[in-house]
């Protein structure tokens, strides 16, 4: 039998079900791997062996009784943006140091009910605001392919934990690319489903009309298993989509009409927006993405040239809407009901101001300032309302494209992961690197990142696939077909 850390979610679940291995043994093996490797990686903000082993024992009892589901006993970990009743939750912020939630986020509760074993909480940018995990108030996470480089963000710790084989699968969240971009930078697979497919209840809110939960793992198949368990209607989330639960794993494996064994993607039309391949795209990223597209063609897909003319506009539109919603959501952190409170203050107003000045980091303050400004009297129409109108135009552009294709493809990010410290001095410049993930986020469409080789410095490159609303099954099907025919997703960083 392979070492536990070399097994993905599906493989590990099968080994557990066959009783070749117990959940306690798997959990212990990964806990010891975390203890050995994580100090140099910074993926975890919190690990709780006692809580994990108790859950593993409960899973072993279910396995022994023969009642195991698709994920029973599989160790995972959660981005620290999900509240958990049995472990602390910080959202990567000093504001929530020591915070204990009275309840579990719906996504966490569902994964617990499916028998997964949560080992701990994963590092992220503060309140999910960032693209490098350097905005964590605790410590940065390091890319396992080259520790002098960032893992991406905001779900940076999530991506590191999977890439370094500390856990087979994790949860992440994606507001403007926070699952897809770190998945790309760390050479793993991640999916952000359609807005409303996963409950936002208990996911600490950043931008409520954009935030979506999703899984990250080594393969599309592992993501399909996790997404099936995480998703579904939740009456506690006002924007949760009331549709019957979906078996993403079955959808992933269902054969297309007209498909053959050699050409499982026959008839699939993949649109390539010209704006996703600008002159400024790094040559190494372009080459890897083109190699991925060539494989999809071999599998029977046809490539269609098309246009998403407002791609560049998505940057200001997103960076108006997301901070506006953030400034409203983060007003709850006032030092009264939970979280940090300043030690010294003159009166109530002064307490609010000092508490928030001490509790929030630089990037969070910057976004609260942008958001407060664009929502303030006299500026609302020019900025916030105009951005929401452009958002409709961007969503309509996608619908226009989907009359000509089934999926849209392109790079996830213009470059491979950059070195720590680069881009910290110019926040606006850093926002520009989100260009390829923002349009799909604004429209609320499902998107994936899957590894398609390496670029400069041997760093991984991700291919982005975007589907139409509720076409997660089609996305996972195409990604799985590619991963059955290629081994990019099996590449592991050396020395770990």
């Amino acid at each position, binding site marked *: 039998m392979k070492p536990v850390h070399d097994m993905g979610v599906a493989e590990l679940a099968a080994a557990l079900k066959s009783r070749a291995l117990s959940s306690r043994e798997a959990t212990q093996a990964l806990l010891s791997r975390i203890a050995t490797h994580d100090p140099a990686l910074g993926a975890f903000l919190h690990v709780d062996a006692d809580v994990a082993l108790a859950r593993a024992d409960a899973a072993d009892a279910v396995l022994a009784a023969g009642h195991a589901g698709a994920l029973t006993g599989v160790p995972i970990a959660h981005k620290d943006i999900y509240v958990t009743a049995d472990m602390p939750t910080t959202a990567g912020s000093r504001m929530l140091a020591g915070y204990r939630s009275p309840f579990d986020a719906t996504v966490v509760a569902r994964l617990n009910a499916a028998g997964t074993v949560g080992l701990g909480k994963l590092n992220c940018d503060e309140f999910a605001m960032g693209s490098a995990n350097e905005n964590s108030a605790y410590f940065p996470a390091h890319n396992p392919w080259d520790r002098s480089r960032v893992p991406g963000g905001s779900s940076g710790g999530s991506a590191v934990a999977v890439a370094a084989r500390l856990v087979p699968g994790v949860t992440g969240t994606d507001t403007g690319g926070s699952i897809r971009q770190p998945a790309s930078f760390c050479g793993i697979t991640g999916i952000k489903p359609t807005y409303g497919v996963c409950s936002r209840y208990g996911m600490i809110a950043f931008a409520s009309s954009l935030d979506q939960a999703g899984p990250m793992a080594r393969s599309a198949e592992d993501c399909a298993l996790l997404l099936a368990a995480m998703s579904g209607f939740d009456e506690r989330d006002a924007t949760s989509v009331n549709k019957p639960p979906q078996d993403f794993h079955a959808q992933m494996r269902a054969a297309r009409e007209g498909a053959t064994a050699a050409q499982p993607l026959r008839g699939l039309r993949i649109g390539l927006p010209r704006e996703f391949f600008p002159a400024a795209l790094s040559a190494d990223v372009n080459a890897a993405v083109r190699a991925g597209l060539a494989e999809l063609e071999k599998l029977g897909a046809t490539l269609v040239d098309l246009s998403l003319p407002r791609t560049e506009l998505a940057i200001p539109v997103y960076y108006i809407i997301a901070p506006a919603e953030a400034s409203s959501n983060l007003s709850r952190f*006032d030092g009264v009901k939970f979280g940090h409170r300043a030690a010294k203050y003159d009166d*109530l107003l002064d307490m609010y101001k000092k508490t928030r000045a001490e509790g929030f980091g630089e990037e969070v303050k910057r976004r609260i300032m942008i958001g407060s400004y664009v929502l303030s009297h006299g500026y609302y129409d020019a900025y916030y309302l105009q951005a929401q109108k452009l958002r409709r135009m961007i969503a309509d552009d996608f619908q226009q494209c989907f009359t000509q294709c089934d999926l849209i493809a392109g790079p996830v990010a213009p470059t491979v992961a950059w070195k720590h410290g680069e881009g910290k001095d110019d926040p606006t410049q850093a*926002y520009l690197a989100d260009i390829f993930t923002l349009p799909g986020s604004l429209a609320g469409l499902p998107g994936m990142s899957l590894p398609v080789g390496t670029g400069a410095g041997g760093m991984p490159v991700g291919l982005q696939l975007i589907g139409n609303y509720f076409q997660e099954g089609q996305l996972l099907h195409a990604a799985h077909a590619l991963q059955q025919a290629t081994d990019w997703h099996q590449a592991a960083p050396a020395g770990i």
Partner: protein
Amino acid sequence: MSLTPDDVSRIAHLARLELQPAESAALLGNLNDFFEIVGQMSAVDTAGVEPLYTPLSAIEQVQLRLRDDVVTETNQRELNQRSAPAVEDGLFLVPKVIE
């Protein structure tokens, strides 16, 4: 259009953030850099376009659900207050507001 130091103090007050002088100066630069890329937005004619406040309304009528007006939560005051900075007799403590 450029923001001024006064704008920064006004917004910081609205956002209930106390800023140190160095922070205010840095934010002024950051905000002005940012609003330079926002300029391209205002050039687009959006007359007659409906704002897209929630993404699925791009393809379907989205209606907020109303739940039945019944009690669904039990009293968990202690659990809910365990992360509060200051409580007494089950109440959240704040500085005196009314003289």
